[in-house]
């Protein structure tokens, strides 16, 4: 065979080399790629795990140190040292909570490492607290300027937030005049509080308070910084800001504003409505409640402005005013104080139970207090202590020296439970001893302080000389039997009217062969001078009888006091048995006395510049002179008029038309000789208040167009004993004339009060038609009263109706409370400082809650406050939030001018910079990575 290649060795070597190198290269390339991957990977994962362990234990060490230091209020920040990359890989560091255990977690791709930090709750002085670990960072943050850190944060919510209040009296001031400023706190101050008042002109006042009230008088001489009202250039609204905070805790603060109305011409000043809105406290923990306050105040000049009144009291003094009317009424159930003990006997034997007292209460139980002096139990007697064993009364008397009471004996008492109850009539505290002796051995001997009484009281106000005070209709009193009426009557009042006598007289029962029987109540009436009256029935019914000679209204009374003193009258009511008893009582005074009281109360509400006049009417009306020409019948001296009111007495029939006519002639505007001076009552608003207890029964016939304002009447058929239709028509005609007649550019206002149950529907309708419309709610100024309290309230309401600053007020307040907001709604209430009714509705919408208020009027110094109670939800995130939704909150009202006339409706948006609240973590500290 011929050979292809000459040199065998050379060729085979080259090919061997090439083949080998080729194989090796491929091998090396593949290997190096693979190997790098495999070797690095296993190494890197090991390194990563170690690094993770390092970072995790670093965080854990910091966490532990934080727990050991854990300031109750403060912040700790520690930088974490970590590599931005491990083996060219970034990783994630996180801290979290899993089933109440905190942990640190590092991860990068598929490599993860966890390290536990322990349970989330810790015991500390002050209790258990919960830590919330959280947060995460990427390792690349280690290269940035903001290094990763572990932050501990705990903010203390305040021990309390001082609720500062600043008020001015008067709140509407004439320029250069004085006003009194009061700074106080609504809640209790337990740490020193620093407060500061910033005035409108930049000056300020500051002090430390320990809880008291600060008062000072300031003179308004500088109105720079006040807002001038665009509608009346002489009026300025000057706002002060009051801020208070706890000493050394500036974050526990509250602030409130108040606005003063300053005018250079008060007479031409319009009344206003001002509002103030704030939140307190404005720093809360999660789950804690806070209050949103919206305060509305009327502002206006009560004394200086055109709200002064000229009032004529037109008072019915017809014969029926001699009759009684209800002054106070009581009805309540009195539950006795029962001493109750249970004993258990384990065997049969001789059981003796004693209940007694050694106190005798001589000031309550003595012979002088008894209506028939030797018929009542003297001193404290055993009938006044009752002992019940297992519900049954034990009636054996027990007496041993000064100890008196009841006892129970049973020589063969079976074993078992015994319930012992003791009741005693104790109008003041006594000591009751309960002793149980079983088989000769004392097993219970207890002395307890005990009282068993209830007090009800009423006050007879001063200013009126009341003829009598009668109290009747009391039930369950003890009684003296066989007591006859004394046939001789005591006269307490006598006078003649047109030759006819009018009198009141009374009598009481005579003691005879009376026997005393216990009732279920012992009642004492304590008079203003301290003396006691022990109330008793005679032969089962009233002890006193009183009558007048004008009609059938007599009284059967349990108490009858002639010329009663003014002051406090107290009932001390003591139940005798262990069952609850009803106490009821009704106090009566003369109708005319109630009318006097109401008139005097009204006069006390008037100011120095208000004028008062007085006209009585019965068959005829009579003006009472209270002053001298040219103003004979009106005066600003209220006490003079009050004295004249006190001297009125009940007379004859009732002529409302005459009353109204002469009432209006009190005003000095009719060119009458001796009473002719319109200027004397200039700038005042005329008001006639007619008080009557009956229906029109008589009138004066008239066909003269110059008399009775041209109101004709033919009264020949009216006798004075029943309804007189011509009188009604004449009165309505006069009223219409007056309502359209202007004095000082005001129409004359007429208010009517019907006082008694004798007025039928027809009569009430008549009085309603006589009245003009009230300035505060446009309803007829007519009131119906049957008791003295109702009468006084009617006068008060009339007074308030003329003091209004704004009408038809409606407030809409929208707050950020809904399913998605951080707040929950708890409660809403509204309070008026004058007790005016305010209606409130709450509507929950999807993204807000809307509260609406409505009131017919607000008076010039009335304060209406809406308080919303909200709470921060338990899971609300921390931060600062707006509570009010400004765009949907506003106040709308009808504006009045300085003459009290309506002059348009305006809408005020409710804007406040104090409606933010901050939610903090409070007791739950956070430890987070960021």
């Amino acid at each position: 065979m011929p050979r292809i290649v000459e040199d065998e060795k050379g060729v085979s070597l080259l090919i061997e080399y090439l083949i080998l190198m080729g194989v090796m290269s491929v091998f090396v390339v593949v290997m190096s790629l693979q190997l790098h991957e495999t070797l690095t990977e296993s190494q890197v994962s090991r390194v990563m795990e170690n690094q993770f362990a390092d970072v995790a234990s670093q965080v854990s060490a910091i966490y532990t140190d934080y727990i050991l230091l854990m300031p109750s209020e403060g912040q700790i920040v520690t930088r974490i040292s970590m590599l931005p990359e491990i083996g060219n890989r970034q990783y994630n560091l996180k801290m979290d909570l899993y089933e109440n255990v905190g942990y640190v977690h590092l991860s990068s791709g598929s490599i993860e490492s966890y390290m536990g930090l322990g349970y989330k709750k810790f015991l500390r002085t002050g209790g258990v607290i919960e830590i919330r670990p959280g947060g995460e960072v990427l390792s690349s943050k280690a290269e940035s300027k903001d290094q990763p850190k572990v932050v501990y944060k705990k903010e203390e919510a305040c021990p309390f937030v001082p609720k500062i209040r600043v008020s001015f009296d008067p709140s509407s001031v004439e320029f250069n005049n004085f006003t009194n400023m009061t700074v106080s706190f609504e809640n209790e101050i337990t740490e020193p509080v620093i407060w500061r008042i910033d005035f409108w002109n930049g000056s300020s006042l500051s002090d430390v308070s320990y809880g008291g009230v600060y008062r000072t008088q300031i003179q308004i001489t500088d109105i720079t910084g006040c807002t001038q009202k665009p509608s009346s250039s002489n009026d300025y609204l000057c706002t002060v800001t009051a801020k208070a905070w706890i000493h050394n805790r500036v974050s526990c603060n509250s602030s409130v504003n108040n606005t003063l109305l300053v005018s250079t011409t008060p007479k031409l000043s319009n009344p206003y409505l001002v509002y103030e809105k704030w939140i307190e406290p404005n720093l809360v923990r999660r789950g804690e409640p806070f209050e949103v306050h919206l305060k509305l105040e009327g502002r206006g000049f009560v004394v200086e402005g055109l709200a002064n009144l000229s009032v004529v009291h037109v008072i019915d003094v017809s014969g029926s005013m001699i009759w009684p009317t209800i002054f106070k009424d009581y009805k309540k159930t009195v539950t006795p104080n029962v001493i109750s003990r249970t004993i258990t006997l384990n065997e049969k034997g001789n059981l003796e139970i004693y209940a007694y007292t050694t106190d005798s209460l001589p000031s309550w139980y003595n012979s002088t207090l008894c209506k028939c002096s030797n018929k009542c139990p003297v001193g404290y007697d055993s009938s006044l202590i009752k002992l019940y064993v297992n519900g049954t009364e034990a009636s054996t008397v027990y007496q041993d020296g000064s100890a008196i009471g009841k006892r129970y004996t049973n020589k063969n008492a079976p074993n078992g439970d015994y319930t012992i109850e003791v009741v005693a009539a104790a109008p003041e505290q006594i000591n009751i001893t309960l002793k149980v002796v079983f088989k000769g051995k004392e097993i219970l001997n207890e002395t307890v302080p005990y009282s068993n009484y209830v007090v009800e009281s009423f006050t007879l106000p001063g200013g009126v000389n009341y003829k009598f005070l009668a109290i009747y209709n009391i039930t369950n009193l003890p009684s003296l039997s066989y007591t006859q009426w004394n046939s001789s009557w005591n006269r307490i009042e006598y006078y003649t009217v047109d030759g006819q006598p009018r009198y009141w007289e009374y009598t009481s029962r005579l003691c005879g062969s009376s026997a005393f029987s216990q009732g279920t109540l012992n009642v004492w009436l304590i008079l203003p001078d301290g003396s006691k009256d022990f109330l008793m029935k005679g032969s089962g019914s009233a002890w006193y009888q009183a009558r007048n000679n004008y009609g059938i209204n007599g009284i059967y009374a349990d108490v009858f006091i002639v010329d009663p003193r003014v002051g406090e009258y107290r009932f001390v009511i003591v139940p005798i048995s262990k069952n609850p008893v009803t106490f009821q009582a009704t106090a009566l005074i003369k109708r005319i006395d109630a009318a006097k009281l109401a008139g005097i109360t009204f006069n006390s509400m008037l100011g120095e510049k208000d004028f008062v006049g007085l006209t009585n009417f019965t068959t005829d009306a009579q003006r009472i002179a209270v002053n001298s020409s040219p103003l004979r019948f009106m005066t600003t001296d209220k006490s003079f008029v009050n004295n004249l009111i006190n001297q009125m007495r009940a007379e004859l029939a009732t002529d409302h038309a005459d009353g109204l006519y002469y009432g209006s002639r009190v005003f000095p505007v009719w060119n009458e000789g001796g009473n002719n001076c319109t200027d004397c009552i200039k700038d005042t608003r005329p008001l006639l208040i007619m008080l009557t207890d009956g229906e029109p029964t008589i009138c004066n016939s008239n066909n003269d167009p110059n008399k009775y304002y041209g109101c004709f009447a033919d009264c020949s058929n009216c006798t004075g004993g029943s309804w007189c239709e011509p009188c009604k028509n004449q009165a309505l005609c006069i009223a219409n004339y007056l309502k359209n007649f202007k004095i000082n550019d005001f129409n004359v206002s007429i208010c009517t009060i019907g006082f008694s149950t004798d007025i039928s529907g027809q009569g009430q309708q008549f009085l309603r038609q006589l009245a003009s419309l009230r300035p505060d709610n446009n309803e007829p100024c007519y009131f119906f009263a049957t008791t003295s309290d109702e009468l006084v309230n009617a006068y008060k309401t009339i007074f308030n109706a003329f003091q209004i600053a704004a009408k038809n007020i409606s407030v809409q307040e929208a707050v950020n409370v809904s399913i998605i907001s951080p707040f929950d709604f708890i409660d809403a209430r509204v309070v008026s400082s004058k007790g005016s009714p305010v209606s409130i509705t709450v509507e929950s919408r999807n993204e807000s809650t809307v509260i609406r208020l409505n009131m017919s009027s607000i008076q010039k110094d009335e304060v209406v406050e809406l308080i919303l109670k909200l709470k921060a939800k338990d899971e609300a995130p921390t931060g600062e939030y707006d509570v009010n939704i400004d765009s949907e909150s506003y106040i709308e009202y009808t504006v009045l001018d300085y003459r009290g006339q309506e002059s348009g409706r305006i809408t005020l948006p409710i804007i406040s910079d104090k409606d933010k609240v901050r939610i903090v973590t409070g007791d739950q500290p956070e430890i987070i990575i960021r």
Partner: protein
Amino acid sequence: MEVNEKGQMILLFAAAVVVIILSISYVYAQNVIAGIESSRTMLAFPKEEIRNLCELASSSSTSTDEVVRQVRILCAKNGWVCNYNYPYRVEFKNLEVEYDAQDCRR
């Protein structure tokens, strides 16, 4: 002339191994220093210093202006910034830790 070509494989493999070792050792170096941070943190966290400051701030006699001034100088000498006030108000700052408490009590 004879070129000795023996040992080429070994050298080649050796070169490859060296490269691999170098790349792994880069990673390994990071392994050695693992654990250094947590131990350093445990040693360096100024727990005792803060506790001492809290104790000083708890009594008004050790919180007079003069004492506070001296303590601040002492801190500064160690490279820290510290301050405290009666009652219980403590501030401490060093390179890693910032501590600020209105009430340092636990």
